[in-house]
């Protein structure tokens, strides 16, 4: 279930050099300040990079083995895929769950308040086989992990 990518991931369209990215990196902006309300643009973005840029202010993530994604290897029904993202990284501010191959990858985003732990579990829709990506924002930095989920199309039982 744990995935590991031992390299820094540079996603296209990264805003690391932008003012917003720098401000987030410097811890000057809290999640609440960056996201005034429901992150419309992030939910409408069609590519993972654009989703993260919009949602978290940056698409640059460090691959992390301290993020665990629990999701079935084979989803019985793509409409209901149980996903749990948990992390031992300290100071988690927010967690996002993306389904890379969905028309709009962002499924859910969680802002953690005081005392909240790095653990969220929900059930998401996946249109086809692909990676579930868990992104964790902590200390102004972004970390990510992936888990491949096979989505089968129903046959006679489906």
């Amino acid at each position, binding site marked *: 279930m744990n995935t590991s990518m031992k390299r820094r991931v540079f996603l296209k369209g990264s805003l690391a050099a932008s003012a917003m990215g720098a401000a987030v990196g410097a811890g000057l902006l809290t999640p609440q300040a960056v*996201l005034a309300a*429901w*992150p419309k643009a992030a*939910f409408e973005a069609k590519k993972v990079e654009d989703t993260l840029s919009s949602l978290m202010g940056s698409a640059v993530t460090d691959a992390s083995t301290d993020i665990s994604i629990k999701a079935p290897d084979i989803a019985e029904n793509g*409409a*209901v*895929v*149980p996903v*749990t993202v948990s992390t031992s990284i300290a100071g988690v501010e927010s967690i996002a769950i993306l*389904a890379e191959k*969905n*028309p*709009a990858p*962002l*499924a*859910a*985003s*969680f*802002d*953690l*308040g*005081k*005392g*909240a*732990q790095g*653990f*969220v*579990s*929900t*059930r*998401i*829709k996946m249109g086809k086989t692909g990676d579930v990506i868990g992104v964790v924002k902590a200390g102004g930095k972004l970390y990510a992990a992936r888990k491949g989920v096979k989505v089968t199309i129903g046959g006679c039982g489906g």
Partner: protein
Amino acid sequence: MANSIKLRASAKGSEVTVKCLMTHAMETGTRKDKAGKPIPAHYITEVTAEHGGNKVLTAYWGGGVSKNPYLSFKFEGGKAGDEVKISWVDNQGGSDSASTQIK
């Protein structure tokens, strides 16, 4: 929409695990009905969890969360008998909330 949240909270020491199940269509807005007419988007956009006057968690959701959605999260600093409250709002102006005592 009343009575749409089923909620459970349990404490192990001061770590509280909350599990909830909401009744909601979570329509993406991209599906069509049998007559070919588009079914309007209708999904929970925000879920808030409160404990001891503190906003413990804010979840932002889109149509990519499953119908009759489930949510579980954990937080430090609670104990049996404390109240946890869950509220949601959706894109059509609907809302609901429910509370439970931590066991």
